[in-house]
Structures are given as structure tokens and as C-alpha cells.
């Protein structure tokens, strides 16, 4: 009886120590789930989800405080990917947070710009170049198309322009086959 108890106690102690040791040794820094959700989000940093950026939204999803269908730039594919990752049911995009749009970049009308720097302060990815009382311009390759610079502009000189299709970014289309009327041979017996 006593031996059995001792054995159990010793075993419990040993396993406890092992668990404690591995908890310290293999400790995971940060929340890997947040990073994995963040990797799926499109990093537009537009805030349409109601959070001040993609990372805060990812954190909210991980905590269960936000739904997976609040990201219009991620589109339907993004919701599917999040649903797969989190093992939840797919939901269509919530229209309250906006609708998906074709990818665009902001363009500053440089003749109208008064150099107020308000858009520079609003840009989440520092994609606007300029200084006070000097013309601003957008670094198109860095612009995520978040539209956050539109609202603060006092002279409305920023517009969103959809990215044009060029031979460089052109994609082969999904093969679709037009449904054609039946071949004329079949009609022949009728006329004959």
C-alpha cells in the first residue's frame, strides 16, 4: 500500500517537474495564433473592420471579440482562409464594414495640393512623401489603397485610381466555354 503511494507520488513529482521544465524551456513568445491570423489579413491597414489596423483586428479575432467577416479588402477568399484556420463556419462578408473594391492606389492632384501634411499623418504605411507647404506625392508601390488619406485632405485633392491591367500584371483567365447553338447538321433532317 505504502509503496504504491510512494510510487504514485514520485511519478507525480517527476511528471510535474518535467512539465514545469518544458513550460519554461519551450515557452512560445507572443500569441502564434495572432500572427497566423495577421498573415492572412491583407495588411491594408484601412480600419474598415473597426480596429485601428490589421494586427489589432487579428488580436481581436484571436480573443473572440471580433467576427471573421469584417475585412472587405481581404474579400471572400480572406474569410474562407480565416474560417479554415480557426475551424469555424464561413460567413459572407458583413456589408456594414464596406464592400470589396478593385485594388486601387491613391493619387494626389499636385496642382491642388496645398502642402498641409494632414494626409502624411494619416497614412498608415508612410507612403506619402512631402513636407509642410510643399507638394506631396504618393509612393504608388507602397500605397495599400486604404483610403485613409482621403478624409483628412482639406482641398479634396486625393483620388483613388484602380490599378490598370498591363502585360506585366495580367493574369490568364479561368477557362470558360461559351454555350453555342447546336451545330447546323442536326437541323438538316428537318429541312430535308
Amino acid at each position: 500500500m505504502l509503496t504504491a503511494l510512494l510510487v504514485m507520488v514520485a511519478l507525480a513529482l517527476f511528471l510535474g517537474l518535467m512539465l514545469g521544465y518544458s513550460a519554461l524551456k519551450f515557452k512560445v513568445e507572443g500569441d502564434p495564433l495572432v500572427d497566423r491570423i495577421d498573415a492572412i489579413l491583407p495588411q491594408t491597414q484601412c480600419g474598415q473592420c473597426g480596429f485601428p489596423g490589421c494586427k489589432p483586428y487579428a488580436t481581436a479575432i484571436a480573443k473572440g471579440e471580433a467576427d471573421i467577416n469584417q475585412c472587405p479588402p481581404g474579400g471572400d477568399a480572406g474569410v474562407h482562409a480565416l474560417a479554415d484556420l480557426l475551424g469555424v463556419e464561413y460567413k459572407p462578408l458583413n456589408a456594414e464594414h464596406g464592400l470589396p473594391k478593385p485594388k486601387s492606389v491613391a493619387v494626389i492632384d499636385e496642382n491642388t495640393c496645398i502642402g498641409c501634411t494632414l494626409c502624411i499623418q494619416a497614412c498608415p504605411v508612410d507612403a506619402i512623401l512631402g513636407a509642410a507647404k510643399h507638394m506631396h506625392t504618393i509612393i504608388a508601390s507602397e500605397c495599400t489603397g486604404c483610403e485613409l488619406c482621403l478624409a483628412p485632405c482639406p482641398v479634396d485633392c486625393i483620388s483613388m485610381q484602380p490599378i490598370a491591367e498591363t502585360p506585366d500584371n495580367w493574369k490568364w483567365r479561368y477557362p470558360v466555354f461559351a454555350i453555342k447553338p447546336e451545330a447546323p447538321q442536326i437541323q438538316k433532317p428537318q429541312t430535308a
Partner: protein
Amino acid sequence: MSAITQLSRLFKFNGGVHPPENKLQSCALPIRRLPLPAKLVLPLRQHVGNLPKLRVAVGERVLKGQLLAEAEGTISAAVHAPTSGIIASIGEALIPHPSGLPDMCITLEPDGADEWLPHAPLDWRHADKQQLTESLRSSGIVGLGGAAFPSHIKLRADGTSGIDTLVINGAECEPYITCDDMLMRERAEEVVRGIEIAYYLLGAKQCLIGIEDNKPEAAAAMRAACDKSEYPLQVIVVPTIYPSGDARRLIHVLTGREIPSFKRSTDMGIQCFNVGTVQAIYRYFQFGEPTLSRIVTVTGNVAQAGNFDVLLGTPVTALLDAAGGALPDTNDYLMGGPMMGFSLPSAEVPVTKATNCIIAGAPKLFPEPEPAMPCIRCARCADACPVNLQPQELYWFAKSSNLEKARDYKLFDCIECGCCSYVCPSHIPLVQYYRFAKSEIISQDRAKQAADVARERNEFRLMRIEREKQERAQKHAQKAAGAKTEGSAAADGKTLEDAKKAAIEAAVARAQVQKAAVEPKNVSDLPPAVQSEIAEIDARRSDAALEVEKMQLKKTIDTNSVADGKGNEAVSQASPEPTAEK
């Protein structure tokens, strides 16, 4: 007998098909030259890689062989003027691309003089190899087999290439195309001289020239030319099977070595060039001629099919006219062969470095494909695939947009040869699905990269804002501390006012000293003439200032009286300069 022993040494790749060759139509006549067309349209994008940088302006007269656009970055190729003339325009025009989208092009109007820019041969045997490859960069030579990869990268002769085998691709396996065949028949000497240059630059130890057995005349001409060469060049006749002209397949057939999917042939010590490319290399070194023309097969539904030596930028219509014109029932123009080519958006597009063949299509040549039926998983495509892929699985994944899975099944090893579509009993356009899936994956990868950059920039911005906040807080804390010590000094006897006054006086004194120190040097001792000029300018300046003040005063009075409250005008009046200009 020798042919038998040679064939026994060769290796066989899996699959492949035997489509009707249709090569005889276009190799009956010798290579012909085209009359100079009315205009040449030269797309900047004629190669794989970066767009070259423009070096000419509209209206400029250029000579034949003059650089129009310079290679930019590592993977890029230059564009030269194919004849002398005037640059008529630089802008978007239709290019031969499956998208049918316009791209940046230079339009050249020939003046008929065909006047050359002075050019000289390069003594490649005695020049520094490094310099030779450097100069190749400005030659505009790209792979003329159709891939259009810049050749100067493949000929990197920095001693680290480690190339032991040079493979020359004269297989030309695709139906209808005969441009390489005719080139080897008529200009075998030039091709062999070009091979010698490549052999020397790469420091190769053996050279294998692969020619399919349906081109006996070409093989004989090449053998005769190789016999005169001082290098050990071997012409090897390979069995005709599509797609033995693919570089990796040909290397496998000739050497028995298979190149792993994640490696290049150079990693295995093998380099492969098309016969047209080595001929262009020869022309460049022997005569100093950059790539200005290429041989194009014009065949299909035309009156007199044949091969033409065509200046780059020549419209396809001019080419068709030279071949006797397209027959009336022509409904499509293909660039490339029937297996891998694509429909041209219009017959007005120019010939580029990648244009090896133009086929006028008609329903009698290429009947409408039968409607696609469901896949019956017969695996005939897998038997035909020369890359040992599982096309039926790839089709499944591509069709359902299961892109990650398609990538796992090595979609990117697919060479889009079309063997699978050719044998499919259900007439499924398999290659179209693979192309769709490939470009979708590529665009997703690009979006992912852009997202990573955006994340990084956003994180940096947040970090910067946080850092600025901390710095500001620190400054405030320091100021507060300074005020405290001053406060304690005031308690020592002096009043706070006195301390402030003293500080201001000290600052004024400092400023005066500084002002005296930085007397501008260029006005110290000047001749009287210059001094009087300066005085005059100063007087004018003060007058102008008075004038501006007056006008501003007047303007403010005007606006007050009109009291027009438009936002935009208020903004323009907020800045004094435009007002003064008025």
C-alpha cells in the same frame, strides 16, 4: 551504322507526342528578305526581365544599330534601331502578347537610307572574357528560341560558371516551325562560329548539337561546318518527338542527366543555347551587329509559306503580304507553334525577338475544339507528360482553384507543352487551366509580398510614433527639471525677472556677435561697377516690396467689399505669392 550506334547512346524522356509535322510547306524556298516596311514598332518588352530604359526622344534621327533603350538591372536586354530613320512616337501600342494589352513601344519611321552606326568587330579570342560578357549586355541578344531570356546572363564567363557541357538546341520540335531548320541549312558556318564563341567564353569541355531526325539537310550542313571547326563539336541526331526541343528535355536526351525541379541546368554544369541565338552572338562579335532582325517562319493558310529574315518591329501584315497574303478563310493569327503559341490580338502587331513563327489559322487547319467533356481519369495525360507530372490531378486542383495543392503537385514544373491537352480523349483544355492556376499563384505571391512590406512599414511607423512620443515626454521632463533649478536659484536672492532679463541680454549679445562674424564674403571688396549694380538691385527690390504691399492692401479691400465666400478662392488668397503675381 554510325547512326545506329549514335541513337543507342541517346536517352529517352517519358511521354511526348507525335503531332502532324507540317514543316514541308515552309522549307521549300530559301530564306527571303522583306522590303523595308513603312514603319517599325519596337516594343520595349521583347525579353524576360526588367523593362529597358529609353535613350532616345521623339523626332530624333537614329542610325541603324543605334541604342534606343538600354538594359536596366541584371535581367534585361537592350533595344536597337533596326534601320536608320526618325523616331515618330514613343507610347503605348499593341504588342504580341496573349493578353492583347498595349505596352510601351518606340515607333520608327525608316528613311530608306539604311545607314549604319559605325560598328566594329570584337576580337573575342584576345579580349578579356569579363569585358566580352559586359559588352554582350549592350548587344540586345536574347534567346531566339522563343523564351527570350537575355543571353549575357547565360554567358557569364567569370570563371565560376563551371560549365562543362554546351548543348546547342536545333531540335525545333514544334509543328509548322522551320526557322531554325532553314538557318542551319543556309547559315551553318555562322552558327558554328557562334558555337565556338560560346564554347570559348564558357570554357566548356564538350559541345553537343541536338537536331531532330526530320531535318537531315540541316544536320548534314551542320556536320560539314563542324568538321572544319577546331573545337570538338558533335552533331547528334535525335529522334523526332514533341517536345524534345525543350531545353531540359533535350539535355536529358543528349546527356541522360535530368535537372531537378528546383535547379537550373547551369547548376549541373550544362548550358543550352538555341541555334539562332549563337548565330546572333557570332554576328555581334564578328561584325559588331546587335540583334536587329530574326528569321521568322510564315506558314499555315497563306499562299506561299516560307522563311523570312525580318527586321524587328515589322508588322505581321507585311510578313503575311510577303508570303503571298493570307487566304480568304483565315480567321486567326498564331504566334509560335500550334502547340504552345497564342492568338495574336491583331495582325498589326510587330515582330519581336521572341517571334519564331506566324501561322495564319483557318477552320480547315485548326478545327474548332470539340466541347470539353468530364475527366474520366484515364491518365493518358500522365503517360504523355514529358515532365512526369500528374496532369489529371493538377487539372482537378486548378479547376477548383485549390492553388496550394496545385503548387504541391509541382505545377511550376509544367512547361505548358500541351501534350496532355493533345491526348485528352475528353478534349479538356488542360494547359489553359494550368496557365490560369500559375498566374493566379504568381499574383497571390506578389500580393503576399506587398502585404509583408506593408506590415513592416506599418510596424515601423507605429514604433516611430511611440519613439517620438517618448522623446517629447523626455524633453518636457528635462525642461521641467531645468525650471525647477532656476526657481531654486531665484530663491537665492535674485528675482525671476532679473534672471530672465539677463538671459535675453546675453542672447542679444550672442546674436550680434554672430551677425558680425558672418558678413557675406562676396560683397566685401568689390569693384565700384559691381557695387553700384548691387545698390541698384537693392533699390529695385525695396520698390517691388512696396508695390506688393500696396497690391495686397488693395486686394484685401476688394475681397472685403465683394465678400465672396468660396472655399477655393479663400485658399488661394491665403498664400501671398499667387496674389502678388496677379
